[in-house]
């Protein structure tokens, strides 16, 4: 548990029934809002503007996801991986950091980039991979990167960002600066050897990092019950001498509170924390996936949507209403339309850029291949 007076967390054990692993007790996940948005716990210290910003970013991410899926279905972009249902976890956790902290994403953390202030237009450009894209189409779609915002490129290989995140945190510790690193992982990713190596290293060297597992219950078609015999992934942290806790990942205020407390702790030399955010992947794994083939549609129909839940909280305090909602939706639509229009007008990258930006000096073999590509066809 995180020892922090300002952000108390439950002491861990309540007498719920034992898990399939024979563990005696279940943790109570940290929660601030009740499922219908009533204030149930202690809300983190946030200004009215910050509270509104959380809502705006979650809504923005949702609107963006919906539009990008449409673009993919229309054949205008090749591929997309939405974060629908997980908005509170990504937005809340990134929000709790300081600007100088590093983020090592897994594969569903576009929301963290939005929070960091990355222009939506650049995200669209990455998906089109044309001349507007900083990486000129070299990366797979959805693999955003923004060095200037301390957001490391997403990587397709599950879990390999975590040893890197822990290594970056170790560097911060050696340098003695106050940087904290947030590394994300999926529930599926916890089965990887890299997860284990990273957790062990973080524990031994007490690196200033927060490792946040987005337990969205699915790894493509594998449910979490078939991923690990342990019901609470947070329990795994104990094996490494790291405090682990569960948070309601559909409660944005709880995610902010938990991540902030863990980041504070890391910043003060208290070492790493593992957070399991309980959430749900409401959509398909990606646009190449059809979840109706492996999970009941009733299950997806019952998903706890974090956005209306938080909206209810804002409305109850008079900070939000129907009119503002309409305004926001119109604003988002305009922003996304403008971004798409701007990016679609750009041409494809110059073919000569094919071998640029990968090797410091492109090897002869690649130069030969490029020459062949550029040679006029007879």
């Amino acid at each position, binding site marked *: 548990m995180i020892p922090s007076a300002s952000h108390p967390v439950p002491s861990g054990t309540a007498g719920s029934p034992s*898990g*399939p*692993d*024979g*563990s005696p007790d279940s943790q109570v996940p940290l929660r601030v809002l009740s499922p219908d948005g009533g204030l149930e716990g202690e809300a983190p210290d946030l200004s009215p503007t910050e509270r509104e910003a959380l809502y705006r970013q979650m809504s923005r991410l949702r609107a963006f996801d919906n539009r990008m899926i449409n673009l993919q279905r229309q054949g205008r972009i090749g591929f997309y991986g939405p974060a629908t249902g997980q908005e509170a976890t990504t937005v809340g956790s990134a929000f709790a950091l300081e600007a100088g902290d590093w983020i090592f994403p897994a594969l569903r953390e576009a929301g963290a980039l939005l929070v960091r202030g990355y222009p939506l237009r650049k995200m669209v450009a990455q998906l089109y991979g044309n001349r507007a894209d900083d990486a000129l189409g070299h990366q797979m779609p959805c693999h955003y990167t923004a060095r200037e915002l301390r957001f490391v490129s997403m990587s397709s290989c599950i879990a390999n960002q975590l040893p890197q995140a822990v290594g970056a945190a170790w560097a911060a510790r050696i340098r003695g600066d106050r940087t904290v690193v947030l590394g994300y992982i999926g529930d599926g990713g916890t*089965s*990887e*050897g*890299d*997860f*284990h*190596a990273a957790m*062990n290293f973080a*524990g*031994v060297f*007490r690196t200033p990092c927060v490792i946040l597992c987005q337990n969205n219950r699915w790894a493509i078609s594998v449910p979490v019950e*078939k*991923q*690990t*015999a*342990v019901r609470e992934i947070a*329990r*795994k942290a*104990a*094996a*490494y*001498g*790291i405090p682990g806790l569960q948070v309601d990942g559909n409660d944005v205020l709880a995610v902010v509170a938990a991540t902030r407390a863990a980041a504070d702790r890391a910043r003060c030399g208290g070492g790493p924390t593992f957070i399991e955010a309980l959430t749900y992947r409401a959509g398909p794994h990606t646009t190449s996936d059809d979840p109706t083939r492996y999970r009941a549609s009733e299950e997806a129909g019952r998903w706890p949507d974090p956005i209306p839940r938080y909206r209810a909280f804002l409305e109850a305090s008079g900070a939000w209403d129907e009119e503002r909602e309409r305004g926001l939706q119109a604003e988002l639509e305009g922003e996304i339309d403008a971004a798409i229009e701007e990016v679609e007008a750009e041409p494809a990258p110059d073919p000569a850029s094919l071998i640029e930006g990968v090797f410091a000096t492109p090897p002869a073999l690649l130069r030969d291949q490029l020459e062949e590509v550029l040679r006029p066809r007879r």
Partner: protein
Amino acid sequence: MTIRHEERPVLTPHNLDETELLGLFRRMALLREFEERTAEQYARGRIWGFCHLYTGQEAVAVGAVSALTREDYVVTAYRDHGQAIAKGIDPKRVMAELFGKRTGTSLGRGGSMHLFDREVNFMGGYAIVGGHLPIATGLALAVQYREEDRIVATFFGDGAVAEGAFHESLNLAQLWQLPVVFVLENNLYGMGTAVERASATRDFHPRAEAYGIPGEAVDGMDVLAVREAVTRARDRALDGKGPSFLEMKTYRFRPHSMSDPGRYRTRGEVDIWRQRDPLRTFPERLIEEEVATREQIDVILGEVEEEVRECIAFAEESPHPEPADLMRFVWAADEPEGEDGP
């Protein structure tokens, strides 16, 4: 003479008679003598390359394997002489392998770290730390799939616990309820790295909980405690209750390998652990509890000395591998035929 409960409260729970108890001692003494003479032969240049001695940990291999049947599989790391001999490989062939001779368990091409004998279901020593754990887990999957009546016991060091392969293996073993017993030999060092510099948790057995596997600490210097724990874990696996994790608290008396000057620990520390040397404490206990006499113990020690002398003579006299065979026995297509086979 069978020891009855009322008379021998300490030894009887194991239900072992005098012959069996002396058998355990004999096997531990054989391993000790084998390793001492191996060190000597290494110094004389008869054995070369990587070589990791098992001295100090004999109670683990002997106690654990005594709880298994010949059909059960054993898979271990590179510190493998002890498990190999305990599992029933002829020590002569083990010594011949160390000498790089044709009569060795792996025809002289595996050396100390790659002992192997399918006949006794000793499925190998492996040099990559933690690399054999997925192999053991896979064997257990095969056993479960074929509905066979046997289990897999796999041995590994404290250093292996930090490997990704360990994590992946334990997760799947429990998820699929595989008949495998994970035997961690915590000898407190991975080469020169003390466990407290490699793990943020003091004990390893509570880590099993992260996988939903029952974990237990065992006195790895007590051959009967080891035997008892492995017996229970084996029964569990046979009952279809899945894997177990046993942390054997043990110690290696000699350096990590033949090329380790051992500057990371004090003589005093080694001496303290030598007080608990199973080759000292176990016979003392047998004598104290009147299971055996000093003379019987001495006879056994003399016999194993002679046995290891014969091993060395066998290895010395055996032929070297044929240069013409250099490319053979590596790929499945070159599977050796008849008596040539490993």
